[in-house]
């Protein structure tokens, strides 16, 4: 198959062998599980349990209310201790709501779980998508976007190609490699289910050429007669080939339009871990409650891959990898390029946790003093989105948010190539994140201001209407007064008016102090 290339990128040392030497280790049930309500892109799930409740393994304990969201299931049986804010793996370092579960040790499955479907070929796409949503599956390559949404392309978008992203291009991470080596049949079964769901004609399964064992395992697991439809493709190891848009470019030569989605090209892209989770949900009726995590880096003694329950603290993972090496001073969730540093190893494994990287000062030395940009253009050379990172840096610094968008800020995938090659040690990606957040914040402010203006205009309109009505009423009254009314009627009307005034006075006297009217007068 003819492969294409994208602009820029870097050939980085892989550091995969460190963690692939040891067999996959299933971790036991930890002492306590912290299961965050927001492990995905979208609104946080809403708890279905309360402190003190007993829950069974696989039971849904939090519910996605929005279309873009994912349910959360109990990773094991036990008692809900509390639902409270705890540290979670998030770049902000802020705490977030977690269901804290104390396992009872029985690891007992719920009997009201999902029914295994061996007849999935007879199910229609809607049913299968519902199952994916019921199982709480999100993209397991790290982005954690709800999979049921991704498998539901907008009407009119016909999907002809399923791309399986087994690139795993970031250094150190080997969880997909491990998955493909250990469960090639399950991954391929997931491929078939999703291809059936999408009614896709062909599957392009890409694996970077630094994972020959995984490629071999998949080749052996794939029957001859399927190889036309499901094509295993070995692709060059260039960071960031694993970016969805970059991978599609490599495989097809097509570029996903800037503001569009792969579905616009008739393509859906999935990670092998996600496909295995889909298969487990459909064929075995298992929700997503565990995942493979690479625990690696020179900061742990015996790097390896573990299969951990969602909610397992990072500290347990480090212990499973032989404990911390002396001098460890950095803990990163994700890879060295796009991962973010974690402040506390009490944070739990979530659905998007692919790797835990621990390093010592000598592995990630401080980059030296920040120097001025010398406009060397190395960042431009390596940018996989073909941007001008250096110009964008000046615009971000000058808070020139119009120009920076004009230069393609939102086409930046934050891969970090520019920051890595910058001789001046400028944390370029941070500048772009800053600019994006400022722009989003301003957008929000603008929406607020628009809303306020609408309210104000509505109020003015209402007041004008009231004025008009009042004038009309007065006019009617005047007209009525000018008409001579029968005497008795008039007297009765005066009496009634006097009664009303007295009643009003009494009411006012009883309700002291009189509150001033709300100045905003909504």
């Amino acid at each position: 198959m003819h492969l294409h290339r994208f602009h820029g990128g870097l050939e980085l040392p892989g550091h995969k062998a460190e963690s692939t030497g040891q067999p996959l280790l299933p971790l036991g049930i930890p002492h306590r599980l912290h299961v965050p309500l927001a492990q995905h892109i979208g609104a946080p799930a809403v708890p279905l349990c309360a402190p003190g409740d007993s829950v069974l393994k696989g039971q849904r304990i939090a519910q996605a209310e929005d279309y873009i969201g994912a349910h959360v299931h109990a990773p094991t049986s036990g008692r809900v201790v509390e639902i409270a804010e705890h540290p979670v793996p998030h770049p902000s370092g802020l705490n977030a709501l977690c269901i804290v579960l104390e396992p009872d040790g029985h690891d007992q499955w719920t009997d009201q779980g999902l029914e295994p479907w061996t007849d999935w070929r007879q199910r229609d796409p809607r049913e299968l998508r519902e199952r994916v949503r019921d199982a709480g599956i999100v993209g397991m390559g790290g982005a954690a976007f709800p999979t049921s949404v991704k498998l539901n392309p907008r009407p009119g978008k016909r999907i002809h190609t399923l791309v399986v992203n087994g690139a795993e291009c970031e250094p150190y991470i080997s969880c997909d490699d491990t998955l493909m080596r250990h469960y090639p049949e399950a991954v391929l079964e997931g491929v078939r289910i999703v291809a059936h769901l999408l009614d896709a004609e062909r599957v392009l399964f890409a694996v970077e050429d630094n994972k020959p064992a995984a490629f071999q395992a998949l080749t052996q697991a794939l029957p001859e007669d399927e190889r036309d439809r499901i094509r295993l493709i070995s692709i060059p190891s260039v960071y960031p080939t694993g970016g969805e848009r970059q991978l599609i470019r490599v495989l097809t030569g097509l570029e996903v339009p800037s503001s569009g989605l792969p579905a616009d090209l008739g393509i859906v892209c999935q990670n092998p871990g996600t496909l295995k989770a889909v298969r487990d949900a459909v064929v075995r009726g298992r929700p997503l409650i565990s995942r493979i995590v690479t625990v690696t880096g020179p900061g742990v003694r015996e790097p390896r891959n573990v299969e951990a329950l969602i909610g397992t603290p990072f500290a347990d993972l480090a212990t499973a990898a032989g404990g911390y090496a002396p001098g460890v001073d950095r803990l990163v969730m994700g890879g060295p390029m796009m991962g973010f540093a974690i402040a506390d190893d009490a944070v739990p494994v979530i659905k998007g946790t692919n790797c835990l990287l621990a390093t010592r000062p000598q592995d990630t030395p401080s980059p030296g003093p920040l120097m001025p940009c010398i406009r060397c253009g190395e960042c431009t050379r390596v940018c996989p989105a073909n941007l001008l990172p250096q110009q964008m840096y000046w615009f971000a610094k000058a808070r020139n948010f119009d120009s920076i968008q004009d230069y393609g800020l939102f086409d930046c995938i934050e891969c970090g190539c520019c920051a890595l090659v910058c001789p001046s040690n400028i944390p370029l990606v941070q500048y772009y994140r800053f600019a994006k957040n400022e722009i989003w914040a301003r957008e929000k402010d603008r929406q607020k201001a628009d809303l306020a203006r609408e309210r104000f205009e509505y109020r003015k309109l209402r007041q004008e209407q009231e004025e008009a009505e009042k004038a009309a009423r007065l006019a009617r009254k005047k007209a009525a007064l000018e008409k001579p009314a029968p005497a008795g009627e008039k007297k009765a009307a005066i009496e009634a008016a006097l009664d009303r005034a007295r009643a009003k006075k009494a009411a006012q006297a009883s309700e002291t102090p009189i509150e001033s009217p709300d100045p905003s007068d909504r």
Partner: protein
Amino acid sequence: MRFPTRTSPHVVPGHSVGGVMRQVLYALVPGTLAMTWFFGWGVLVNVTLAILFAAGFEALMVALRRRPVLDTLSDSSAILAGWLFALAIPPLAPFWVLLVGVMFAIVVAKHLYGGLGYNPFNPAMVGYVVVLVSFPREISLWPAPQSLLDSNSLGLLQTLQISLTGRLPDGVEWDAITRASPLDLMRDGLVAGQTVDEITRNPIFGSFSETGWEWTGNLFLLGGLWLLYRRVISWHIPVSMLLTLATVAGLFWVIDPGQFASPAFHVFSGAAIIGAFFIATDPVSAATTPLGRVLFGAGIGLLTYVIRTWGGYPDGVAFAVLLMNMVAPTLDHYTRPRIFGHSDNRHG
């Protein structure tokens, strides 16, 4: 257990500004040694003095601006500017020419505009042009090329004495030790109505230009190719500058070989090679987009030819570089690459 948090990427940093600058310095060594061999100790004396002056002015300016002096000096950018400036100055020029030029390069062209990374003009060329227009006599006296082994070449001490006092040792005359450069000869000859053939019949001409200049150029070319190989510079500027210079020269040469010098003469004379690889590639003052760099280099090549052929100076690289520095931001603006996933290159 708690950990400090730092920003990505979490890897060993690969490059540094100082590292980049030092690689350029290493690449200058062979060409500088060749120049010394052919033009005498004055080359080394000039380079040394210019580096000392540059470091001194840099330290002074950084201290005045209340920035860390040692950190800034260690980026080696001032040393590089001083060195490049010195290579443009005749080897027997008095020290104060260097002092004035380096002062303008470092103090005015670099620090008054905000220091490293902020100077719109190439500092070394600003310094050179200032002394070129201010001290034409001192700048035009190039020694005749001869190897250091020649019996009548000046020794290191004699050279130092000339540099510091401006006076020649007894019994040595300026006319005896200096000679017009090939570019001067070509220019003066053509102005006087000679043909290119007649001019190049002069015994100082080698295969393309003068032997000493040719060898110096070859070794600077070697250093430049090494920089390309090390990816310190990209191919765009040197290739497009030399190609444009050769193409334009070739065009006129084909039309009238009697009145216009050959492309090879232009490429291997004067500052073309060192300018293409070491001066025009100064990233701070050059264009930065790939296409912008190609146009930037082409502009320098074209202007160099125009100034050499019809202008008032025998060589034009310095003026061409400064003129193109002026348009570099505009080139960058109009040569933005097409962004991934966009159909045109105008909007992000």
